């Protein structure tokens, strides 16, 4: 559709303000196009999950000559949760002589160290602590330092608030029998889902993100994202791409793209589920999503252009999907900008859309497009076999509102930091479990 401003002014195209208006309209069209693209992507993923061929190629590997594995548990002031994960890891079904747990105690000032040391005494030879007392902050920096203790080809990574089930380690190791696989990601399930409205909304969001988004990307051979926890990485692949990037706020996104650009695949195991704790208060959630947004945007700037047009081993569909995935957090400020532009041109007395086709498009988008994300989450809830929680879908608009402003704020702060040269600050997510 071409822009055809109404003739409410005298030939606006010839004036400076008319040219501005025209530019605004074109930018608005581009934003609408990008939003439609993401809407189509939501539908594509959801329909694939509901009706497409489902790929779970490695989940059946239950008997094998299991390789030695190192499990890294990232812990910074985790006295509330660290005991739970160490207990769980000591009872998983994996050959005891082939699994070493390294709790990466990153400069904790609480009782994390004492709790870890108690477990080391209790399970001699099975836990090798890495107590880090200085150095750069952040999970990636801590993991990077801990790598000097890792000798196994397969490395699994957990955050300290996760509780792995008995079969999880085998499930996460199994994909590494495929020599194309550099990274593995399992599914995260909130264990405190029922605490309050926020946790229930996050439960729905996680469900949509993993059950539909991640699995659809796996099905369609796109770019499943490494989540940095309930995850694994191949040592030789990690070395090939230069190790952990300690300058990244989201080392998982960074890892996903560096693996992809170097010819390694990240695979998603939807049935490798693990409980986590989600934020129970909005300020913590906002901090968390702002950190994710900054890290993701950082990866977008670093890898976006190279991924799309550069010379590397990613396939065409991976290039497109990877680029769209990198842009996910940029969509919040873009959407806000779109709203502003739409209001701006409207109050300038211009209706940028005309005619029956435009009307039909608008109606169609209002009827279908706006529901894309909700449809995705509803489909995820259905696939999970949960029913009543779908009733909470309308409240997701609240989560959406908070996210769009938080993520936009993160982008603004990030740009400001870039201009002023300020360093990124890594915020740890607060835990809500009671100390054991």
């Amino acid at each position, binding site marked *: 559709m071409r822009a055809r401003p109404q003739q409410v002014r005298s030939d606006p195209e010839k004036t400076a303000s008319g040219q501005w208006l025209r530019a605004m309209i074109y930018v608005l069209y581009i934003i609408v196009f990008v939003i439609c693209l993401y809407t189509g992507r939501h539908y594509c993923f959801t329909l694939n999950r509901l009706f497409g061929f489902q790929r779970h190629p490695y989940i059946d590997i239950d008997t094998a*000559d299991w390789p030695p594995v190192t499990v890294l548990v990232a812990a910074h002031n985790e006295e509330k949760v660290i005991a739970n994960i160490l207990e769980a890891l000591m009872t998983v079904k994996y050959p005891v002589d082939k699994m070493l747990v390294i709790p990466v105690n990153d400069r904790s000032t609480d009782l994390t160290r004492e709790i870890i040391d108690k477990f080391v005494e209790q399970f001699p030879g099975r836990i090798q602590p890495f107590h880090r007392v200085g150095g750069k902050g952040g999970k990636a920096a801590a993991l990077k330092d801990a790598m000097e203790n890792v000798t196994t080809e397969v490395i699994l990574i957990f955050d300290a608030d996760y509780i792995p*089930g008995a*079969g999880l380690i085998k499930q996460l190791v199994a994909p*590494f029998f495929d*020599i194309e696989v550099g990274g593995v990601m399992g599914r995260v399930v909130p264990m405190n889902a029922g605490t309050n409205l926020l946790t229930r909304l996050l439960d729905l969001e996680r469900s949509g993100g993993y059950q539909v988004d991640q699995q659809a990307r796996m099905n369609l051979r796109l770019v499943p994202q490494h989540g940095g926890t309930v995850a694994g990485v191949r040592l030789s692949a990690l070395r090939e791409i230069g190790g952990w990037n300690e300058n990244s706020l989201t080392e998982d996104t960074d890892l996903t793209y560096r693996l992809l650009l170097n010819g390694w695949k990240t695979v998603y195991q939807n049935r490798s589920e693990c409980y986590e704790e989600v934020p129970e208060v909005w300020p913590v959630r906002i901090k968390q999503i702002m950190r994710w947004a900054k890290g993701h945007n950082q990866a977008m700037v670093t890898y976006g252009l190279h991924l799309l047009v550069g010379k590397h081993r990613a396939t065409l569909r991976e290039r497109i999907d990877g680029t769209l995935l990198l842009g996910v957090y940029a969509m919040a400020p873009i959407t806000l900008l779109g709203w502003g532009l739409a209001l701006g041109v409207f109050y300038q007395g211009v209706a940028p859309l005309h005619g029956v086709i435009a009307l039909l498009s608008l109606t169609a988008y209002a009827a279908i497009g706006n529901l894309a994300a909700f449809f995705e989450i509803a489909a995820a809830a259905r696939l999970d076999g949960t029913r009543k929680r779908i009733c909470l879908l309308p409240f997701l608009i609240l989560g959406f509102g908070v996210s769009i402003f938080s993520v936009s704020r993160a982008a603004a702060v990030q740009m400001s930091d870039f201009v002023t040269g300020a360093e990124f600050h890594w915020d740890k997510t607060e835990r809500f479990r009671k100390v054991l």
Partner: protein
Amino acid sequence: MNPYLAVAVLVCTVGLMFVLPLIPALVELRRKSDALPLSVVQQNAGEIRYFSDSFRAYMNGLEPIMQGCVVAGTTATGALPDGEEYVVLGRVDEPLVLALQQRDTTHLVMGSDVDLILPAEARFSKDIYAGGQFIGGIKNNFRAILGEKNVHLGASSRVLRWVHAVGEFTADAGCGLDGRISSDSLIRLQNDCNFRRLNAPRIEIGSVAANPGASLPQLHSLANSGRPPRFLHDGDFEVQAGQVIVGDILIRGKLHIHSGARICGSVKSVEDAVIAAGVAVEGSLISAQKMRIGPHCAIHGPVIAERELAIARGSRCGTLEHPTTVSAPKIEIEEGVAVFGTLWARDYGQVVATQ
């Protein structure tokens, strides 16, 4: 109408319409009827013996009755704590066989510490516990069987859920094995059997040579220190007959490994893979599409095909010391193949005659 009232009515109506879709949400938020965390199985690691172990524990209470029946040579009936009716057999004689034959289906949990020899065409809708040898007749229909010794199914029999044999499990031609079949020593299937998930230290399809693929070199696995180099090729690729490649090969196209080649590493093909006769792969062998493994091949690591897998006579996957998994949605496997570990056809597996 008073304009203030009109505005108030308008605001209220719009407000009500806005709140209306939130009512079920508010009710659910208050009631928390579906607020528990998604069920993640923490303790069951997908063990194939999970059901049989549970059933053994379930039948433990009947052990004294079963022993009593064996001593007295009698039959006992009753109800288990959950209300399921059972029959315990202390002997298997002609009247019992006749009774089983005359019934359309036996709807009782059956337990016995004596050898069970079942008549042809008997049907059992509940689980069976066999403390002694279990020998089925032809065209039997079972729900589940736990055998503490050997379990043998007659031709054209069918299992709906699972079988576990502490001894050997053997199935005559034409059996349909829809669920999990496991044995602590050996599974042997004859021609035209279909299967889903099999697990045993040794799985034989038809008659297998005593030591198939014995000439293979030492195992390479992820466990070995130092990775072999990874050779990555975009497009189709052929490994020549008799060629030896040291390293992992990743092919972003179709792969054809000609006869007698040896790969000292793992193999992955993004498209179809054809493995000719006598090929040896020391690591895993994976195809993202279809894979055909020719006769007398030996694969040490996991064998995965994302679409279809065919394995020809005389091939061997894994070893007794290093068991492995062979998996694909659809598997066709010829007589004479040996798999050590797990053979898992997610949709359908079929034993076919040697071509």
